């Protein structure tokens, strides 16, 4: 037991937590924006894969790091647009479309990777984003290493939380997005185009998801592997529910999950001798399910989530 407390006091644990949480923040906020507009985006797992591959490939082919992030976001938005066309404009099932997008986007990413690098046996590497120590603050114990000695993309992730909150809850366009997820008829009755709002929200959300994927190959690791998103997209979908569709709670939920993840790696090392490591691997997921059972049962979810809107239909 005391081992666990020791882990909590190491700077390495907190730095790892903040690193692990970054892609989850992008993904969760992206999903949150989509769902606030009334569209479930189960394409997230595939869109993160696209982002991871596209961003990395851009840099590998000689582009700059920020150019890679931008390129990943654009690719994500293209798949977001595809999702929006299918389930916003054509009103198809959001579940089926989303899973289809995930399968299509991940397979396409692997295909393109193999096309461009047919003979690579060990995955080639790029020079990823480096840590930027904030002068002064980075010398603080524990907090310094955790919060003020991270890569630029992590700072961006943390900054995205208040930005998304502000846009959703303090601007007219954010209100229109939220209203589209609650009662699209009310939005239409004000002469605002629901389909455009939803399409825009899905595209922006998908862009953020792709940046989350890009973080993994460009800031956490330095190469692209098959299967490296490894269910992080699905975790983001669960985190949105955990967060009751609130950006601030999304950050808390993501931190909780990332902390458990960082903890389990260390716990494996210290206690692995007498507890099978699979138990620790499972831990974050079990805790997430328990948290969902306690919290998610009472949440008010967007009332028009999953409900397609068709203009001019007799109601």
């Amino acid at each position, binding site marked *: 037991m005391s081992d666990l407390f020791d882990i909590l006091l190491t700077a390495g644990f907190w730095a790892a937590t903040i690193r692990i949480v970054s892609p989850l923040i992008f993904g969760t906020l992206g999903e949150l924006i989509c769902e606030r507009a009334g569209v479930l985006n189960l394409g997230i797992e595939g869109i993160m894969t696209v982002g991871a591959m596209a961003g990395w490939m851009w840099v590998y082919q000689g582009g700059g790091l920020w150019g890679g992030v931008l390129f990943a976001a654009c690719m994500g938005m293209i798949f977001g647009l595809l999702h929006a066309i299918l389930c916003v404009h054509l009103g198809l099932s959001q579940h089926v479309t989303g899973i289809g997008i995930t399968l299509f986007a991940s397979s396409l990413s692997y295909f393109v990777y193999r096309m461009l690098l047919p003979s690579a046996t060990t995955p080639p590497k790029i020079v990823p984003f480096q840590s930027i120590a904030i002068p002064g603050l980075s010398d603080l114990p524990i907090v310094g290493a955790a919060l003020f000695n991270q890569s630029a993309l992590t700072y961006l992730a943390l900054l995205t939380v208040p930005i998304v909150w502000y846009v959703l809850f*303090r*601007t*007219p*366009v954010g*209100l*229109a997005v*939220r*209203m589209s997820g*609650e*009662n699209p*008829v*009310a*939005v*239409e*009755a*004000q*002469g*605002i185009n629901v389909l455009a709002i939803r399409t825009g929200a899905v595209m922006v959300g998908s862009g953020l998801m792709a940046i989350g994927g890009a973080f993994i190959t460009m800031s956490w690791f330095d190469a692209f592997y098959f299967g490296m998103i490894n269910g992080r997209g699905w975790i983001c979908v669960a985190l949105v529910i955990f967060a009751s569709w609130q950006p601030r709670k999304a950050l808390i939920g993501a931190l909780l999950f990332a902390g458990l993840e960082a903890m389990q790696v260390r716990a494996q090392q210290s206690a692995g001798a007498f507890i099978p490591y699979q138990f620790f691997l499972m831990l974050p997921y079990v805790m997430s399910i328990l948290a969902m059972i306690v919290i998610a049962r009472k949440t*008010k979810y*967007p*009332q028009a989530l999953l409900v397609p809107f068709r203009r*001019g239909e007799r*109601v």
Partner: protein
Amino acid sequence: MATQPVIEFRSVTKRFGTLTANDRVSLSLDRGEVLALLGENGAGKTTLMNILFGHYRADEGDVLVDGRALEPGSTRAAIDAGVGMVHQHFTLADNLTVLDNITLGTESLWSLRQDKKRARSKLDAMIEDYGLYVDPDAFVSELSVGERQRVEILKALYRDARILILDEPTAVLTPQEAEQLFSTLESLRRDGLAVIFISHKLHEILAVSDRVSVLRRGALVATVETRTANREDLAELMVGEAVVRPKLKPLEAGPPVLEMDKVSTRNGALQEVDLTVRAHEIVGIAGVAGNGQSALADVLSGLEKDFSGQVLLNAQPFSAGNPRNVVASGVGRIPEDRHSRGMVGDMEIWENLISEDVRTAAMSKSGFLINRSAAIDRTRRQIEEFDVRCEGPNAPTKLLSGGNMQKLILARALSRNPSFILANQPVRGLDEGAIAFVQGRLLAARARGAAILLVSEDLDELMSLSDRIAVIYQGRLSEARPGSERTIAELGLMMAGQSDRGEAA
């Protein structure tokens, strides 16, 4: 001096496929005037207003606001021209605040901040001016129906509407809330707003409007000054023939069919209810909604079994909590909410119609297959008999109007010749023609020998249809006594909780 009308419809025609919803309708409306738009369900009132508000595009004809033609099919243009609409089904988001609901779409989408402070002061002023009290920071889900309607009206006024359309505004209100709405309309009229009030309730129209335009099957049949109109004439204009609501003929009551003895539900919604309904008898239950009517109906329709006391049906024990046996033992049920409890909208008419009879020999083959041809045959016959206007047995039930859906429920309930009929709000929301039809059928069932329990909030209806009336208040039921022994005023007091003074008189 001839003033410019605020709104003018010029020969507006709208077709849906082969159906002509509006047929060359011409209307005009002045400042400070309340125009009632009267018509049965499906007469084209809402369609006409949806054209004005840009939800639909007219096939022919123009709509002019202040003498200028309104851009067709554009809600934005209608709002900008000063038209505000309060839909029958509110367009509010439950999980957002009143303020957010009202300000949506009033600012440029791309401005960087909502100006909530300015919005709040403007809203507060309007709330005071018109007495439309509601908390701007409350979530809509916390509001009563009446308050939600106020939010809808505020939404229109916030956009500086000068023309307010109210589509069946009282359908969902309690009588007290309706009174409040009428006084709000009066102050709006004084401020020079033009109001279009859609309804099929004659007494309301006579109370609030300056003029009445009557629509029938899509065409405008007359526009009359309200001062010179009376109830009977308007009903006749609306239906196209003189409407006579059926009257109760005295009948000797038969043996008891339903007997309830000290029935209390565990949750306290019913407390020691004693009630007897005899053959050839209609017993009316009066009461303000939420005083135990639903619990009573649930017990008698077999949905609630958690109660104490005794219920006998034809002197046999009642199959409490078992809807199938309840129906089989001779209970016909007309549920309060035809959409959620009465019918499955996505299923076809014939499926709904035989749903209580699927297991009977007549409707099944080899004991487990549905005898489709027999079911369709029966549906055809009953569609004919109950005058259900629809495309046929295979039409989706949700396409039926309220009145036709209610006729279908009536057909299903009456097809077994039930000895006891539970009629819960059987004519709520129906138009005059359908009301007369439903009430006539219930009286025919009474003549045949059925015992009927009629639950209603409309005292006029209860007075004209019931042999005896009881009042339910906070789960307690008063003694059922003949309608002639009590006045409407006395019943009203009992509904408000004053105890029965009948004996003292």
